[in-house]
């Protein structure tokens, strides 16, 4: 019997788990995938939004601004990549200036600091590659970029170190009320808890509707993205948004914390909660629209494309709170953009709700800091030499594009909630995320995973489940 079971190990589930580990409570996270950060949290714009988008007075607006303010300190405590680079919303038509002004006013009402409208000349000084027809922009210095995997994994590892249990490959099939709380049926057997947190992303409606008569509906809204090589990473130096208006919603262009350039997303509603397939039309739209606000984009440098699903709730608002007709069942649903930005604040809010329900006491042993995987590339030469002397695996490069060493990969596998698949290693170390897209390093990473996990190479998967990389040995069918 757990005090709390959190369904979903995405960024809101893991942020909630980490905040709950501040209290004396038996907490378990159930995740249907083989790792944390496998759904919406892994495929999004990787942005810390300033907070001028959401309607004034909404929970979304409040948690966005709060989450944004928490980023710096949290990124230091939990050691994940975050850079406050600022954002620009580009207006390309004088007639649309009132919309830009409205965005500014909303931002001010939401408590966003430092907003100002910059005119053409200053805009060009700030971003030389802005399109010729840009007339003005809303500048938000508090916007930033974050590593979504880094943040999600940091929350999870810190939660695990503070006593939270994680159960992977565990899919919730049914939830029933019991005298003592809730019984959760899964493909790995039953689990019991006094309190349940529903952080199931695009499945939050399915989970919610298992316990409540007040049905909700989450529509997966697909976003296609293209990622460009690091050679294009400094094409812009801030997050560049289009002003929503008569040209449609537009797509954003942004550097990533790792130095790539990201463009996207589309917004296409789908019925398929696993439908993370890009489409020709979607990718074409991204490539075309990215060029509207930023000129001379080096499209030859695209190294990969991907799609993510936003958990769109029909009222476009975060649904966070105890469900009216299901005491002890807490929804954390409808977490779409700016969910990643808001996640630190979501974690605090969810844990506060659960604390009150269960009357939790503080955990005096809570450790609020966590060290990530070292990045030798950020070290001064002498420090890096010392690291290799202490552990020669840091001298052995496995991924040549991202220059990831064996030492980093071993750490990714051996640390709490360590990687068990190629994608798990990739999200933790960037091995395979570069311009050759794992062509060179995947056989090498497979070897290390097999050795470390005591498995045969034929058992190693790309991302758990049936995603085996090799299907047999030579001539085994002849």
């Amino acid at each position: 019997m757990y005090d709390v079971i959190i369904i979903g190990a995405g960024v809101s589930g893991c942020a909630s788990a980490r905040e709950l580990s501040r209290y004396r409570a038996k907490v378990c996270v159930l995740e249907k995938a083989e790792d944390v950060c496998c759904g919406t949290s892994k495929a999004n714009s990787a942005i810390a939004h300033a907070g001028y988008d959401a309607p004034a007075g909404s929970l979304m607006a409040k948690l966005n601004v709060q989450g944004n303010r928490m980023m710096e300190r949290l990124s230091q405590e939990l050691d994940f990549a975050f850079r406050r680079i600022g954002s620009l919303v580009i207006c390309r038509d004088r007639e649309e200036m009132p919309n830009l002004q409205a965005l500014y006013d909303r931002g001010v009402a939401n408590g966003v600091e430092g907003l100002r409208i910059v005119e053409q000349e200053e805009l060009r000084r700030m971003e030389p590659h802005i399109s010729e027809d840009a007339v003005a922009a809303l500048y938000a210095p508090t916007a930033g970029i974050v590593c979504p995997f880094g943040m999600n994994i940091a929350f999870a590892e810190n939660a695990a170190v503070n006593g939270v249990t994680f159960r992977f490959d565990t899919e919730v099939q049914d939830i029933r009320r019991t005298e003592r709380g809730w019984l959760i049926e899964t493909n790995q057997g039953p689990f019991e808890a006094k309190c349940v947190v529903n952080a199931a992303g695009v499945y939050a409606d399915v989970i919610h509707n298992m316990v409540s008569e007040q049905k909700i509906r989450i529509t997966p809204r697909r976003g296609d993205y293209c990622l460009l090589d690091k050679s294009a990473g400094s094409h812009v130096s801030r997050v560049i948004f289009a002003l929503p208006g008569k040209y449609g919603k537009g797509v954003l262009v942004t550097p990533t914390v790792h130095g790539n350039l990201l463009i996207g997303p589309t917004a296409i509603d789908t019925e398929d909660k696993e439908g993370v397939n890009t489409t020709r039309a979607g990718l074409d739209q991204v490539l075309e629209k990215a060029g509207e606000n930023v000129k001379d984009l080096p499209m030859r440098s695209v190294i990969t494309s991907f799609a993510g699903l936003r958990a769109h709730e029909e009222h476009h608002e975060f649904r966070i709170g105890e469900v009216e007709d299901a005491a002890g069942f807490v929804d954390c649903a409808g977490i779409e953009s700016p969910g990643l930005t808001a996640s630190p604040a979501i974690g605090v809010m969810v844990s506060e709700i659960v604390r009150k329900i269960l009357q939790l006491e503080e955990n005096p042993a809570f450790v609020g800091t966590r060290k990530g995987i070292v990045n030798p590339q950020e070290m001064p030469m002498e420090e890096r030499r010392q690291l290799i002397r202490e552990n020669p695996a840091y001298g052995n490069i496995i991924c040549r594009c991202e220059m990831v060493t064996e030492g980093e990969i071993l750490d990714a596998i051996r640390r709490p909630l360590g990687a068990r698949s190629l994608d798990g290693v990739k999200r933790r170390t960037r091995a395979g995320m570069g311009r050759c897209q794992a062509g060179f390093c995947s056989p090498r990473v497979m070897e290390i995973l097999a050795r470390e996990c005591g498995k045969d190479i034929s058992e190693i998967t790309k991302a758990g489940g049936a995603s085996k990389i090799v299907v047999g040995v030579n001539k085994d069918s002849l």
Partner: protein
Amino acid sequence: MKTYDIVIIGGGPAGLSAAVSAKKSGTDSILILERDKELGGILNQCIHNGFGLHTFKEELTGPEYAGRFIEQVQELQIEYKLHTMVMDISSDKVVTAMNSTDGLFEIRAGAVILAMGCRERSRGALNIPGYRPAGIFSAGTAQRLVNMEGYLPGRKVVILGSGDIGLIMARRMTLEGAQVQVVAELMPYSGGLKRNIVQCLDDYGIPLKLSHTVVEIRGKERVEGITLAQVDEKGRPVAGTEEEYECDTLLLSVGLIPENELSGGMGVELSRVTSGPVVNESLETNIEGVFACGNVLHVHDLVDFVSEEAAAAGRNAARYVQEAGSRKAQGTDKEAAGRTVEICAVDGVRYTVPSRINTERMEDIQTVRFRVGGVYKNCFVSVYLDEERILHRKRPVMAPGEMEEVKLKREELLRHPDLKAITVKVEEV
């Protein structure tokens, strides 16, 4: 800081041949830096035969061909370091490298030979839509898994791209028990050698579909199928021509990209056409004493020509080092003797390597390699010195997949003291 006269980046076919040639040209202080666990580069996974017909007049496998050069490197006692990744090269030729035993270290080089080879274009570079399941491999990655690790990447295979590695892998996968259903090629012609189409596809009854591409990948965890469609002249899929294939594996052989991140980082000028360094007759880049050869310079079809080109780079680097030594002794600067003439690649010729020639410094016979941009039948390759045509050679067929060459005679160029441009072009009858 340790100093070597010549540091060679990469111990594959280009690096090995450059090293042997530099040593034989009289330079003793040579170091090869190789990132893998053995010398030989990509040849180690090319276990099929057909290598060395030009160089050794016999058919060797890839590892055998590499072995011939590795033996020479060892006999000549050329130094090399394995498991060693070059992290950076500065424009004044300080090489920063790293391995587990020496850690992070720096070497000052008198001359640098870039021989890093190339990498495969990935699915991402093609922007093929669909899911991102397991079972999508570049042909070279699959080749490594099969030939070096003994693992079968899949049982029902579709191959996109008819580059040589894709064709070779169609045969290899068949021999290892997989069923290769089709090879699709976006262009109206194959990107591979004719002999590979015959020996790897035709002999096994594997169909080659020209002007076709993959428009969809199905399967959420592992590939379950793909859709092929015909493309128009601009490479756009034609609606209504879609054909579905059930398969668990998609191999990509869709082009090779010279691996020039180090070169770019040190300030070497790169060609937009080849993605390799722009070089002169000595295969020297815009940075004095920095040479390039093999697939890092431009992608080759035959390793024999890589070896030949790299041998020239090795000779030239040795000469550079020796001349630098005597200039130092005399206290003089490098003199700009002779005149440098640009080679213009026009009318179907996409590029030439080298792209400029110093008539004073060129060898007596200078090989100029190039590729054409389309398929040409019964045409001529012509070379002009300004307005005068000095070569007009009939070619029954030329295709982008087969590298071409012409040889220029130094004495002929010297007969044109006011020469302004050399032009290489395809001429129709």
